[in-house]
Each structure stands twice: as structure tokens, then as C-alpha cells.
């Protein structure tokens, strides 16, 4: 199930919230666990078994790791961690990467292995990463094992972040699983956050996504330079507002039920270097790779050569995590190279040149999206050609101007919404208003009116849902 649907908003959510809050505290994790399984099974009625399997594997491994550790048998504990990682990576490898590997092996003359043609279980890249973090956290002593399989199941399957993140590391929610407190203030904050996310996804991302679909579907000879850049800009906004909107909804829903998840996006498009961009984009993935790959590999502590190697490994993995095809690998490598180059050469230069650093970052990120957007490398090359005027379609045509005019208002809204400024202005205004009680009421009314309008218009778009894609089926 996806959050941005009539089904979720007007069937699943009210029923789950009602059951959750009328249930005694002891039963809430059980309800959350069952509700999450239904949430998952609604879209993947068979694959839910894989998730349960992964849950069970890590639950038992977690206990075992802890037991061996207490007995001081560190070798066995380590073995258990490895066994858990192998199981999870095997699942991921089988369902996500098998066909990619087979497809490439088949390119070797004489090799003909039939493809498995398995559908990718939704969210598998998210929940396998979460469960792996659990056993590692216990091994490192960052968390105690969860004794209750229901609570652990609730952690793995937790529906707010199940299918599109954020990736919640076990140690960040371990205490909340048992001892969280649901409060009115948290619930209200969660509501506001959820509504904002819904609007980002349904009103902003879906709308500009239409423009990208229209442009990317055109034959390459019909895409002049300006249209190619307009198209990739549309894609950049679509994926940002879709993904961060989804994270907002996840964080908001979690908050309504007393969970405090870590942030996942922090206005990535205002970054002034690729290094900064990756600190602001999909932060939960970045910190997962830092905690469980980069640092265990030695990070920057084993000399410069090793650091470069570690960065390379992390970024190839980051790339391929996003999907099993060459363009994602290239995309990861591309950013890895710029991260290394920035570290080595020009990070200081960027810090000193404000405007240049913004242009530089957006330019590189936009090129990155052109690599990311097509899983067919041939089309990546064609689109890049169009962006640099090598498609033979000229610089601009009437259709480009038409699309630009048609989406001008939307683009202005998107640009503003991708920066923290509107939020800051509004907060400043409200702070000033809230000096007296009339102003306080006014500010409340304005905020409520805003979310009500966002929610109602989002509902209108969902009722007439001709376009509502789910972008993370490859992750």
C-alpha cells in the first residue's frame, strides 16, 4: 500500500489509528506489527513471507550474538553476525541482483542462463538493511537484543517506513519500541508533518513528474537543449519531492504513534558541494553506509590510500543499492569520484565561491539525475547528448516554450519549496504574531487552513488519480 492513496487515507489509516489508541499500551506493538503486515501484504500478498523470514532470522541471530558475547565467545558471536549478513544479502542478492548478474553473464559468448524474472519485493532493500543493522548493533554493544519477537517484528515491518524509508537503525529506536509515550503534542506535530509530506508527493512531485514523463518519452531528435534541461529539472524536483515527501509522511506517522525517527532530507538542492549534497540527501542511507561499511572498513583512519578505497567501495554500493543495473553503478561511481576530488582538490575553493559552488553542485547533481533516470545506458547517453546540444534538435523550439509557460508557476513553487526560506519567513511571521493571544489564534488558524487546503486538494488529485507513480520499486 502507498500513503498517497484513497485506500490508505480513508480506510487503513483511520482503522489502524483507532485500534492503536483504544488498545492498552501492552498490545500496541502487536497491533502495529499486524497492521504493518497487512500494509505490506496489501501490495505483496506472497512476498510478505520473505519479510517474516528475514525478521525471524535476525531475531534469533540477535539473541545468539548476545548470548555468545556474554559468554565471552567473541568468535562465535562474530560468526553469528556473518551468518545474519549472509542470509540478508543472499535474499537481497537473489531477488534484486540475480537477473542483473545473469543478464551480464549471458553477454559472454556461449553462456545462456535463463533469467529468473522475479518481481522485486517492495521495500526489501530497506528492511534487509534495517535487520542487518540490528545484529551488528548488538555485536558492537550499541543495543541490547529485543526479547520480544512481536516488538522486533514491529520494528522491522513498521509500516510508516517500511517501503520507502527512512532506514531506521535499530539503536535509534530500541528504547522507543518498549518505552515510547504517545502525546497530544507529538500526535499534532506528526499530523502536520504527514500532511506536508502528502502535499509534497501528490501536489508537487506528481505534477512535475508529468512534465518529465512527457519530455523523456520523446524521440531524442525532438529534444532541443533547453527542453532537455527543463526535463531533467522536472525529474530532479519530482524525485526530491516524492522521496522527501514520502519520508515526511513516514516521520509524521511515526511521530503520531510516539516514534522519533531521524531526519532523511535537509534541503539537498541548496548544497554547495557534492560532499554537502550527500549530507543532505537520503541521510539515513548515507549514515547506514557510514556506520556499517565505511567505518568498519577503517574509514579514514588507515591512511589516505585506504580511505580512497573505502570511499570507492561505499559509493559503488550506494549506486547499486538504488537498482540492479549499470546506470545506478555508474551513478554511484560518479558521485564517489567527485567526493574524492572535492576532498583532494577543490572543497576549499568551493567554500570561498558562493555562487559558483551552487551552480557547480546543481550542474553535477542534474547530470547525475540524467544517469539515474534511465536504466538503459543507451538512453542515458542519448539524453546527455540532448542536454549538450548533440542531438541535432537545436537549442529551443515552440514546444519547449509552451511547456515552460505551462509549468512556469509550478516551477517557481518548486524552487521556493526546495529551499528553507519560505519556511523561515512563515516561522518569523508567526513568531511575531504570537506576541499576543489574538495573533496566536490567528497563526493557529492560518496553519490549520493551510494543511486543510493541502489535504483537500491532495484528495482531489487522488480521487482523479490518473498519475500517481511509486518510484522506489527498484530500490
Amino acid at each position, binding site marked *: 500500500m502507498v500513503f498517497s*492513496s*484513497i485506500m490508505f487515507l*480513508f480506510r487503513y*489509516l*483511520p482503522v489502524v489509528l483507532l485500534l492503536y489508541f483504544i488498545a492498552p499500551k501492552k498490545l500496541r506493538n502487536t497491533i502495529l506489527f499486524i497492521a504493518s503486515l497487512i500494509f505490506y501484504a496489501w501490495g*505483496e500478498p506472497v512476498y510478505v513471507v520473505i519479510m517474516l523470514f528475514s525478521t525471524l532470522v535476525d531475531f534469533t541471530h540477535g539473541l545468539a550474538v548476545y548470548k555468545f558475547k556474554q559468554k565471552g565467545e567473541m568468535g562465535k558471536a562474530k560468526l553469528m553476525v556473518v551468518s545474519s549478513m549472509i542470509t540478508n544479502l543472499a535474499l537481497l542478492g537473489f531477488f534484486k541482483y540475480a537477473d542483473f548478474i545473469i543478464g551480464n553473464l549471458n553477454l559472454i559468448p556461449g553462456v545462456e542462463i535463463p533469467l529468473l524474472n522475479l518481481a522485486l519485493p517492495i521495500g526489501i532493500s530497506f528492511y534487509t538493511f534495517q535487520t542487518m543493522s540490528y545484529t551488528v548493533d548488538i555485536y558492537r554493544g550499541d543495543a541490547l537484543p529485543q526479547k520480544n519477537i512481536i516488538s522486533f517484528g514491529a520494528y522491522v515491518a513498521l509500516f510508516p517506513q517500511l517501503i520507502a524509508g527512512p532506514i531506521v537503525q535499530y539503536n535509534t529506536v530500541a528504547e522507543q519500541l518498549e518505552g515510547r509515550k504517545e502525546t497530544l503534542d507529538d*500526535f499534532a506535530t506528526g499530523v502536520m508533518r504527514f500532511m506536508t509530506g502528502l502535499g509534497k508527493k501528490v501536489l508537487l512531485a506528481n505534477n512535475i513528474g508529468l512534465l518529465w514523463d512527457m519530455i523523456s518519452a520523446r524521440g531524442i531528435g525532438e529534444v532541443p537543449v533547453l527542453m532537455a534541461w527543463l526535463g531533467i529539472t522536472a525529474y530532479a524536483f519530482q524525485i526530491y519531492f516524492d522521496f522527501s515527501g514520502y519520508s515526511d509522511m513516514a516521520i509524521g506517522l511515526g511521530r503520531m504513534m510516539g516514534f522519533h525517527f531521524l531526519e532523511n532530507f535537509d534541503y539537498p538542492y541548496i548544497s554547495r558541494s557534492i560532499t554537502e549534497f550527500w549530507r543532505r540527501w537520503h541521510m539515513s542511507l548515507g549514515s547506514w553506509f557510514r556506520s556499517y561499511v565505511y567505518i568498519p572498513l577503517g574509514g579514514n583512519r588507515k591512511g589516505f590510500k585506504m580511505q580512497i578505497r573505502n570511499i570507492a567501495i561505499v559509493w559503488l554500493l550506494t549506486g547499486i543499492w538504488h537498482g540492479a543495473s549499470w546506470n545506478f553503478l555508474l551513478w554511484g561511481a560518479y558521485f564517489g569520484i567527485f567526493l574524492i576530488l572535492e576532498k583532494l582538490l577543490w572543497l576549499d575553493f568551493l567554500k570561498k565561491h558562493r555562487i559558483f559552488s551552487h551552480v557547480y553542485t546543481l550542474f553535477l547533481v542534474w547530470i547525475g539525475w540524467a544517469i539515474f533516470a534511465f536504466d538503459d545506458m543507451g538512453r542515458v547517453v542519448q539524453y546527455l547528448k540532448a542536454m549538450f546540444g548533440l542531438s541535432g534538435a537545436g537549442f529551443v523550439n515552440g*514546444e519547449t516554450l509552451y511547456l515552460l509557460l505551462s509549468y512556469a508557476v509550478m516551477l517557481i513553487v518548486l524552487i521556493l519549496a526546495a529551499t528553507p526560506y519560505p519556511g523561515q519567513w512563515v516561522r518569523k511571521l508567526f513568531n511575531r504574531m504570537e506576541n499576543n493571544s489574538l495573533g496566536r489564534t490567528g497563526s493557529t488558524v492560518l496553519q490549520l487552513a493551510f494543511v486543510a487546503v493541502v489535504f483537500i486538494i491532495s484528495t482531489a488529485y487522488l*480521487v482523479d488519480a490518473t498519475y500517481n507513480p511509486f518510484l522506489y520499486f527498484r530500490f
Partner: protein
Amino acid sequence: MEERKYSKSVIVLFLLLVFGFTAVTFVWPERSFSENENRVLASAPEFTWKKLFEGKFMSEYETYITDQFFLRDEWIQLKTMTELALNKQDINGVYIGKDGYLIERHEDSEIDMEMLQKSMDYLVQFIERYTKRLGADHVKVMLVPTASEVLLEKLPPFAEGFDQNGMIDSIYGRLPEGTAIDVRDVLKEHAEEYIYYKTDHHWTTLGAFYAYQAYAEAMGFEVPALEDVTFEEVSDEFLGTVFSKLNLELSKDSMHTITLPNTPTDIKMTVDMAETFDSLYNDEYLSQKDKYSYYLDGNHALAEISSNSDGKGTLLIIKDSYSHCFAPMTLGEYEKVYLVDFRYFNMPLSQFIAQYRVTDILVLYNAVTFATDTHTGAFLR
């Protein structure tokens, strides 16, 4: 304390919106058909374990609750209004034109170029064949551009789409001498007049009349002047197919019938060899959504029109619905007029032409229907 009050009001709003709307969806009466969308709405899916494991039950259920969502039409209208507010130049493939004109946008991606190439070949071969049999004076082709190619002044800036002109040019260039009737300039000359509906994809009776003048001239008939014909308004609340794509009423259309000096009075129309009318028009449709079907009782495989006309010969119009307001003007010149629509017509065309002693042929399509028609193989059957 203040925090509390704020939180409580947020929660009340949330309960109203989410739980309130949910409650309404349960008590709202179900509809089986949406007139505005012209389609059957989903009803509650039947549960089976098989459908559950395949995930089919879930997707059917989602379609069901979305289709049956309370005030569905109004929600869709709200979406359209939002798009208007965002200054989108086209919504759902419809240009928001000046003066309340809603004009369909046709994109290259809608056209199957291979099919179109075949259609062009079929048409040209067909016309060549019958020019030889019936004479070039008796075989004509009229491809009518749609509003987006004629009402240029009404379109948003920079709007361009599928190149109908280019297609018409390349077809006309291949047709035998004297068989093509080009109405593009005529229509453009009158672009300021009411020649296309504001809410429908058809031309108006007036638009068809200007085309008829060109046709009459090409055929050597007496060319009626505008002053000599009478228009009668039959409806002023027509909301057509383009309106339905938007579902937002920005304007309304009026529909007219036309009487030429030589239009016969005693008319018999038989559709699909089954139902016979003593008029070209079916009043029943005027009170329904699909008002355009008032003309010639809408789409049929075959319509046969006979009358007390002084005309000679038998005209076969191979057509789409653009011909429905055009055909009445031809009656004064022919004993009999047949209209054939390939989308529904099964009989071999050559057999039909021979059997019904067709003397004249007119192929009349709007350019977009022709470009997207997949039934053109029937020309050569």
C-alpha cells in the same frame, strides 16, 4: 497551555478530515455510471482467496473506493480548478483557449506513424481505383483539420501539436488530380466565426456549411450563399466531449440544424438496416449528455437516407462523425445518400458500392480521426 490548545486544534482538524471523510464514504450512495466521465464506475469486488493471493482483490477494491468516493465529480472539478490556478496551458490534453474555447491537444505520441502510412496508402489506392471506375468528378476526399489547427488565435502561446497540415498536404499530394477538396483556407478565413464547438471536438453546422460550399463548387453544384440558408437552434446547452475531459464548465455550446434552398422535405433515414426515422435528427438525444448524437442518430455502421429530392445518383460518404452535420446539405443533389463508418461496418466495401449502385463517393474525416483510425484496411475490401 498554548501548545496544548494548538495541538488539540490540529488533532480536531485531522479527525474531521480523515475520520470525517471516511465516515461519509460509508454512507454515500453508490453510482453505477458516471455521465461526466462517460464510463461505468467500479462496484464492490467479489472476494475470493485466489484474487486475494494474486493481489487482484486489493487493486479492485482500491478502484472501487476511488470510483465511489463521495462527490467524485466535484473532487475532479476541484483538481481541474487547481490546474487552472497553476496556469497550466492544457489540462488532460485540452487547451484552455481564449473566449471559453476548450480545444483538444493532439500529440505526435498519439499517432501510430506506421498505421498512418498504411492508411494513406489504402486511401490513395482506393481513390485511384474508383476514379477510374466512376470518374474524377465523382470521387472526392475531404480531410478536415480540427480546431487546434484552425482556431490559432484561440490557442495558448506556442501551442503546437501533431502536424495535421503536413499530413493533409502529403495525402493530397498523392491523390489523383481534382479529387482533393481543401477546406483549410476556407475554415481559416472564417476562424473568427462559430465554426467549431467550444466544448466538443466537432465542427459546428456553420463550419460544415462553409466546407459544403467548397464541396458544391468542386462538384459543380449550385453553391448556396449564407443568406439563402436557414439555421435553427435546437439546443443551447451542449457540453461536449472536450468538456468531459475537463469536467469544468467554462462555456456552453448551441447546436443548429441547417436548411438549404434545395433541401428536401420528405425524408426517410434507416440506420443499420434496422431502425427507420422520418427525420435526420433524433430529438431524444437533446435531453441527454451525448447531444451530438442528435445528428443522424449518432454513430452507425450504415445510414441510408432517401428523400423526395430532385437530385440524381447515389452518394456514398465514408466518414467519421464530422459528416453528421454535413450530410444533410448533400440531400438536395442526390436521390440517395449512404453513410458508412468503418469502425462498425463489416460488409466488403466493393460489394456494397456495386450492390447499391453508388455513383459518387466522398471520403470525409477530420484529420485526427483519419490519422488514428485503425480500420482503414476496409477501403480495399
